């Protein structure tokens, strides 16, 4: 790829529903647009699987994206933002410098994993992550799956496993039944969400959906064999081949932080045009609040139109977005984590899976930084993405800064990483 082709009016990072919508509408407005994603295909996690098996709206958006003339760059991971207007990225074969006039970040969210004894065993996996793998052929047929944790994704993933022939054992949602009932009543105001939830329940029939239940430990030798669950009063075990467990979603804010965007709580702060605290940088989707893929598609379009200078078209979607944001705030309230699930790990539980550092070791230090320096927790290949989020929940420590490279990268990519005279300061 020659260097000239890597200058774009608009660069979109993240190829999920939000990023696809943003890139498509921006290109339809006449801008030269590239969309980057770390995965082998566009579609993000929610539309993951075999690319040819996609249903609407994924198929429709991807067709529209193709016709819009956007340059797709899959298998391309952004590793640093060495200077304003420029990103350093790498693919399997190349190290790339990609220049932008407007940047749209739609890197989505990852599942929040909270440590508990046995969570490191193979077979303990995020429900969303497993669903993506299962749609690609990861064997789940006739496997006994216990689903646990929190959030609407539990039901969606369980339905997916059910459709693929899994032997669902149970779905365990930590939210208390009273809170869930209030949330269900609110769903009447969002009829499409209500019908979605009812449809999902059809595919999980036979497996109990238990509010107010959470996992306390997983056991097995080389792989998970049993999970211990509790409702706070009694405790019991269930045999399983897979424990699909996560406690909601947490936004992937590493790139926005590296670029210099400000946060609002744990999410990226944006204005009504989805512009972040830095001019010409826009953020859309789960990064700005966990609202689901429909919300991300609207926010993506607003960001795409705004970045392309079509503020009126962006404005025409504000009302639709407000409705999605209404639902988003209900979600946030309903699936708040109970203190018991944050306190599941004991001192012997591995907290940092990359470096095998226990919670007991990390707890001895006063801050995340001190713990990192002395124990190597958060210093492994995931760069604290898993244990950092957990530590934030358990000990209340926030990561203090993000430093390049934001993901493990090849040395030659870092060496080549100069943008004019700016260079990459490590």
């Amino acid at each position, binding site marked *: 790829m020659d260097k000239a082709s890597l200058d774009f009016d608009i660069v979109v990072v993240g190829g999920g529903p939000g990023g696809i919508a943003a890139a498509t509408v921006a290109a339809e407005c006449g801008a030269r647009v590239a969309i980057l994603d770390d995965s082998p295909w566009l579609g993000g996690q929610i539309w993951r699987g075999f690319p040819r098996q996609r249903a609407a709206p994924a198929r429709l958006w991807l067709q529209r994206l193709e016709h819009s003339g956007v340059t797709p760059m899959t298998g391309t991971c952004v590793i640093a933002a060495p200077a304003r207007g420029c990103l350093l990225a790498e693919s399997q074969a190349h190290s790339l410098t990609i220049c932008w006039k407007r940047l749209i970040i739609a890197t989505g969210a990852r599942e929040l994993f909270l440590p508990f004894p046995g969570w490191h065993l*193979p077979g303990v996996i995020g429900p969303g992550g497993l669903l993506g*793998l299962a749609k690609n052929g990861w064997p789940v047929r006739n496997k006994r799956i216990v689903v646990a944790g929190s959030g609407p994704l539990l039901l969606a993933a369980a339905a997916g496993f059910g459709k693929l022939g899994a032997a669902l054992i149970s779905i365990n949602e930590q939210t208390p039944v009273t809170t869930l009932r209030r949330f269900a009543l609110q769903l009447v105001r969002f009829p499409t969400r209500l019908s979605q939830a009812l449809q999902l329940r059809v595919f999980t029939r036979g497996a109990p959906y238990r509010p107010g239940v959470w996992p306390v430990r997983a056991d097995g030798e080389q*792989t998970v064999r049993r999970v211990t669950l509790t409702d706070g009063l009694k405790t019991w075990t269930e045999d399983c081949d897979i424990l699909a467990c996560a406690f909601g979603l947490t936004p992937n804010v590493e790139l926005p932080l590296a670029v210099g965007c400000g946060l609002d709580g744990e999410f990226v702060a944006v204005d009504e045009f989805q512009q972040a605290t830095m001019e010409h940088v826009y953020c859309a989707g789960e990064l700005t609040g966990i609202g689901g893929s429909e919300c991300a598609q609207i926010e993506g379009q607003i960001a795409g139109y705004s970045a392309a200078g079509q503020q009126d078209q962006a404005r025409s979607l504000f009302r639709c977005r407000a409705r999605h944001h209404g639902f988003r705030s209900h979600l946030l309230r309903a699936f708040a984590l109970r203190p018991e699930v944050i306190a599941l790990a004991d001192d012997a539980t591995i907290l940092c899976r990359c470096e095998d550092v226990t919670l007991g070791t990390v707890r001895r230090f006063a801050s995340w930084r001190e713990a990192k320096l002395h124990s190597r927790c958060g210093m492994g290949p995931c760069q604290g993405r898993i244990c950092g989020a957990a530590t934030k929940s358990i000990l209340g420590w926030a990561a203090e800064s993000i430093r390049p490279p934001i993901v493990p990268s090849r040395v030659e990519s870092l060496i080549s990483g100069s943008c004019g005279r700016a260079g990459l300061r490590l």
Partner: protein
Amino acid sequence: MTVFVNQQPLEVSAGTIVATAVAMAGITQFRTSVLGQARGPICGMGICMECRVTINGQTHSRSCQTVCSEGMEILTGG
């Protein structure tokens, strides 16, 4: 197409990702942790790095973000 998981041939369809192929081969331990524990993917989306395997001699490759190609050699447990 055929890939080799720990030297054993495995037929997979085009578009299968390496993590899927490893699981299809009946393997649950993708890598060995610093303290010698068995580990497999937890995030399934390229973030946790627990799904690392050796692909065509390249160590520490993320199996969940790599698509199988004809004759690919995959080694687990490292």
